[in-house]
């Protein structure tokens, strides 16, 4: 084994910092894993493309099929363009949360194929496999947002309050999506197959995104549902985006998150991120394939 033995020293000499690593190693490890996941996305473009088709379909369905039948309270007349402007923040927010399923399926697949075992046997930062995956999903989500914005502009959606505020809205959307992808990562570590992770990552998203202000104003909901919808983290982000985009907001309630949607969105997302990142990393440490 000359080839292997000879290089033992050079390989050993190239070993960078000592175990434990610190933040520099954590960032580097996460980027190595993120790069790996981005390469995968390039090699399986179908996943990215299907991820784009769904929100575009929602835009078209809601704009043209339901749009004419859903009046936005507080707005004069029944102009479908008004509803489309109202709708778009909801579609954006729903789209970023769907990244949950991707992260979950990816992590479950890595578990299934024994890759998580390999990673866990390497002297790398503990959370880097999950951070790398969620960062790659964030890139994909940003790309999806870009394409979706163009489609939205085509059907008549407009930004009314200036570009910087719109950027802030996209920032909140991406933060929400990033936080949700950690829920997906945890699901991926808990289930046994990628298929289970996909459905497990999607099922609860439907009630979460529909019992909200995303598609219809909450004023028409029964009192109990309305309270749930008003305090739904998802609603806060939708409301914040409507404000920042200068889109119609309908009649909003006086619940705190609806009165201060930007703060509510920020706090909710950070809380979800903190809780689920902690749970997922803890689960990763003891994960068994």
């Amino acid at each position, binding site marked *: *084994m*000359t*080839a*292997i*033995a000879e*290089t*033992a020293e*050079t*390989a*050993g000499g*190239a*070993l*960078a*910092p000592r*175990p*434990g*690593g610190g933040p520099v*190693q954590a960032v*580097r*490890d996460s980027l*190595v*894993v993120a*790069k*790996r996941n981005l*390469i*995968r996305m390039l*090699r*399986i473009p179908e996943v990215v493309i299907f991820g784009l088709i769904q929100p575009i379909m929602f835009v078209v369905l809601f704009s043209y099929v339901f749009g004419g039948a859903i009046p936005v309270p507080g707005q004069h007349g029944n102009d479908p363009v008004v509803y489309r402007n109202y709708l778009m923040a909801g579609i954006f927010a729903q789209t970023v949360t769907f990244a949950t399923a991707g992260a979950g399926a990816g992590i479950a697949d890595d578990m299934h*194929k*024994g*890759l998580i*075992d*390999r*990673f*866990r*046997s*390497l*002297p*790398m930062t503990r959370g*880097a496999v999950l951070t790398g995956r969620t960062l790659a999903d964030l890139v994909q989500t940003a790309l999806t947002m870009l394409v979706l914005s163009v489609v939205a502009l085509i059907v008549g959606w407009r930004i009314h309050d200036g570009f910087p505020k719109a950027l802030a809205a996209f920032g909140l959307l991406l933060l929400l999506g990033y936080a949700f992808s950690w829920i997906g990562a945890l699901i991926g570590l808990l289930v*046994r197959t990628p298929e289970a992770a996909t459905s497990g990552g999607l099922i609860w998203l439907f009630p979460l995104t529909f019992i909200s202000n995303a598609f219809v104003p909450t004023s028409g909901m029964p009192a109990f549902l309305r309270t749930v919808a008003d305090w739904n983290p998802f609603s806060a982000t939708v409301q914040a985006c409507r404000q920042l985009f200068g889109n119609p907001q309908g009649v909003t309630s006086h619940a705190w998150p609806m009165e201060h949607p930007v703060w509510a969105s920020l706090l909710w997302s950070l809380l979800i991120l903190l809780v689920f990142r902690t749970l997922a990393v803890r689960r990763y440490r*003891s994960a*068994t*394939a």
Partner: protein
Amino acid sequence: MPGAIHAEGLVKTFGDVRALDGVDLDVPEGTVLGLLGPNGAGKTTAVRVLTTLLKPDSGKAVVAGIDVLKHPNEVRRSIGLSGQFAAVDEYLTGRENLQMVGRLYQMTARAAKARAAELLERFNLAEAADRPAKTFSGGMRRRLDLAAALVVSPPVMFMDEPTTGLDPRNRQQLWEVIQELVAGGTTLLLTTQYLEEADHLAHDICVIDHGHVIARGTSDELKARTGGERVEVVVHERELLATATAALAGFSKGAPTVEEHTRRITVPVTGGAKLLAEIIRELDTRGIEIDDIGLRRPTLDDVFLSLTGHVAEAPANEAAEQQQAEEAAK
């Protein structure tokens, strides 16, 4: 002095299943230990504990001089693991896979790149290096997986059923790689269900069943313990069976068995190869023409049967069974 791999009293339970029930292991530096056992014996669990993937309920383990439970991350710098599955990313190319692993072993980008190129060459993967691993054959994936485990030339290697599911040609190739590795001074713990494999590769063998080590020693020691060296003679014509049996009686340590239809006589002996020469001379003197003669020692299959009371089972997936046990435990 404790060996490169040293474990004492390892216990790991999954619910009611005691996957490891007080396992002691010691692998001296530069040697190969074959961990031999049927499905669900606890081989994979032992490897997972020693490679920091699983915390034992009790017991202690030291790998490359480092306490596995106290300093897992330092252990990870000194080990390579090649599991039952080829754990490579199938959408990454062979080169990308190895570079990624190198980076995660904390090598610099340049060192990881150089090392990847070197390993691809060494493992006959240079031509396919820039194709996604999913286009690789089973044997190529295994080699890539093994290469990934060798990125930092770890002093201690763990291989969990490295050749399960490989065809004979690929198995032979992998054996050669493993032998070269060990010749280079690597300490290796290898699990296998193939008795032939343990016989071929391992200096010492530990037979494990139901989480217990039930026997340990060299292949020869285990065979000697089972006893039963024997000489088999196949005579040229059936008519010769009687005279040949009589000629062999003087060497026999017990009753010879005669198979009429195969013209085969088997006699238990002690004395090994020297005796074989004497028997051949004797048969020759008496003018008995033979088609075949050989000294047969007990195979590890025989050893296994006499130790466990059941034959080694057909290879299947121990990990799947362990997983079921874990699920049942939840």
